[in-house]
């Protein structure tokens, strides 16, 4: 067999030749000093290119600083939050409870001077507020189904309306 041309030698080294032809070239290269040198040169060249194309320390450091994976870890956070609206409800309930308590206190305050009768009136207001709270809580669950998005804003608005109704703050600023 004559020496293979450069293309055949490259294909042979790339293991891209049919089995019979590859075996013939292998046998030739084993016996031909010139082709043995050509083979070594090709392998060395391939090693050079592989080493040159591999990411070096600086390139790996740049990639590490870019932290591509972080975007995916951050992306997980909203999904988890969407699945846990309990905190929103608890916050709304705390606001509502605070407003209702203030309303009850404001209602009871004028009655303090009237003696023992205020206790029963405060009790009635408390019962009324508890009933309202229960109704709103149930309504909140229904609203959750009917209104897309977060219903806590609606609950906070209801709390504010309740406070206006019970505490009547405009009474405090009347001068007549």
């Amino acid at each position, binding site marked *: 067999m004559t020496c293979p041309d450069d293309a055949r030698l490259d294909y042979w080294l*790339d293991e891209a030749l049919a089995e019979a032809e590859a075996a013939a070239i292998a046998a030739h290269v084993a016996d031909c000093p010139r082709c043995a040198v050509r083979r070594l040169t090709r392998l060395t060249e391939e090693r*050079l290119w592989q*080493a040159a194309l591999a990411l070096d320390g600086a390139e790996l450091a740049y990639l590490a600083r870019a932290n591509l994976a972080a975007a995916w870890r951050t992306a997980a956070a909203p999904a988890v939050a969407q699945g846990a609206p309990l905190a929103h409800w608890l916050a709304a309930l705390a606001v509502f409870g605070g407003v209702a308590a203030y309303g009850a206190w404001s209602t009871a305050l004028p009655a303090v001077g009237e003696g023992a009768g205020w206790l029963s009136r405060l009790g009635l207001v408390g019962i009324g507020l508890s009933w309202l709270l229960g109704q709103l809580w149930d309504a909140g669950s229904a609203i959750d189904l009917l209104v897309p998005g977060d219903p806590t804003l609606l609950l906070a608005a209801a709390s504010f309306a309740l406070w206006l109704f019970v505490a009547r703050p405009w009474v405090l600023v009347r001068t007549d």
Partner: protein
Amino acid sequence: MQGAPPVLPDPDAQAIERCRAGEVDAFADVVERHQAAVYGTALRLLGDREAALEVANTAFYKAYRALDSIDLDRPLRPWLLRIATNEALNHLRREGREARQTLAGEAGRTALESLVAERADPAAGALAREQREAVQRALDALPPAYRAVAVLRYLHDLSYAEIADQTGLPTNTVGVYLLRARDQMRKALAAEGVSAHDLS
């Protein structure tokens, strides 16, 4: 009596199953495992670190959006490399340019950081910086299609059949492109006075 050795679970398949179940966080594991290969492919094709980062990000997003269509019995990396290669080639087409590093700007910073890295890690400096840069320049001078084939061959050590699968080219065309790429690179390197003998 000995049973068959236990088959280790494929971490990529596990991560994809978790993603399909709605656990977005699991995809971060996939990104961490393959980012060097994906980024490396883009970097060698584009010759620009920031553009390569953008392409790598896009490739991972596209992969994530197509998670439902992935065959879990096949390895993930070739599929990711295919997306990255196509994205990088599209980037080159969009930009209408062939990325070429110069010693100003980005390449200057790279060279400086390489110096620092080589001091910190002598093994990393085993291949002379000049040789690396010469090979990258020779690669940058190739037409994009030849460059893609050369990167898949020399960066990822893929066979002709695998490169054909990645690029959608016929296997014979891969061989021809690789032959031409090598020929042009040898000439370019010889013109710069870099030869394979320098390494030995």
